[in-house]
């Protein structure tokens, strides 16, 4: 499953329970993010033991995007049977602090920041 626009791509690799986001998320409000939210929810609905969200290629995220990502993480708190892993990049300015914040919302979240 893939969502592709001129600004971003979101890919769901079902076999590996991996969602990869790349590019720039600058959509107008949470409504425009609903296809992405639906993809994330579908990935979680497969009930994998481990679900990985790879954000290393996500260069820009506006506040509606942060909102959507944070709400997804909060919803994952209810799914104790799924280990959520988030991969980020220290190379991208917003990711270090923002992703630590996500971890505060869900302490069980495994955060892997690469250099």
């Amino acid at each position, binding site marked *: 499953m893939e969502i592709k626009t001129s600004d971003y791509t979101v890919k769901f690799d079902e076999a590996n329970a991996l969602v990869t986001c790349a590019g720039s998320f600058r959509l107008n409000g949470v409504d425009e993010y609903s296809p992405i939210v639906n993809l994330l929810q579908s990935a979680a609905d497969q009930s994998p033991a481990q679900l990985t969200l790879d954000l290393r290629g996500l260069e820009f995220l506006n506040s509606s995007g942060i909102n959507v990502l944070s709400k997804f993480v909060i919803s994952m708190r209810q799914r104790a049977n799924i280990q959520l892993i988030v991969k980020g990049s220290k190379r991208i300015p917003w990711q270090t602090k923002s992703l630590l914040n996500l971890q*505060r919302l869900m302490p069980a979240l495994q955060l892997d920041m690469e250099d």
Partner: protein
Amino acid sequence: MHSVVFGRYETELPETKEHLTLSIAPAAFPLRWSLCSLSANFMADYVGSVFRNVNGFETQLDQLKHTVSYVANELVENAFKYHHDFTTGITITISKHRANFFLLVSNSVDAQRLPDFYTFLEVLTNRDPTELYAERLEQALLEDMENDGASQKKSGLGFITMMMIYDVTLGWRFDTNEPHSQVMLTTMAQIPIAKELFQNGN
């Protein structure tokens, strides 16, 4: 005219030799969402051009440009969403004063919404951003569930993110022009410049 201020709003910005202003006139054409990212990217590129020699401090410059881009994007998105009187335009100005860039975005607002705005900003400027962030998210999630996925109220997450993640200081000034009761809001973002960028004669 009378003014109401929230947060840190510097009224005594000194005369600057250099600043950049973008003025978007909605009467001339419909406001397009892509103008938010266009304006934001342009402001960030402009900031990049202010520093001529950053050998060894490219990371600091990238981070500064990214912050300007994020802040400009958020403030312009808000201006587009809440702009009320389409006979007036939206203005975006950036200028540098000592160790900070000041980004100002002005737009008209609906006078009927002022009480809501004031309440929202009172909370935002008096609470700890980290606590407020978690609280607002959980609230937004609850509202989504009640409204079948559509959260109607402004969460303030953009402003909170600016303060928490990007170390930006924010201020808001509402100017009301009697007797027409037109209200202009100017949002001011103070963006710190890393001291390393002042090396090499910058």
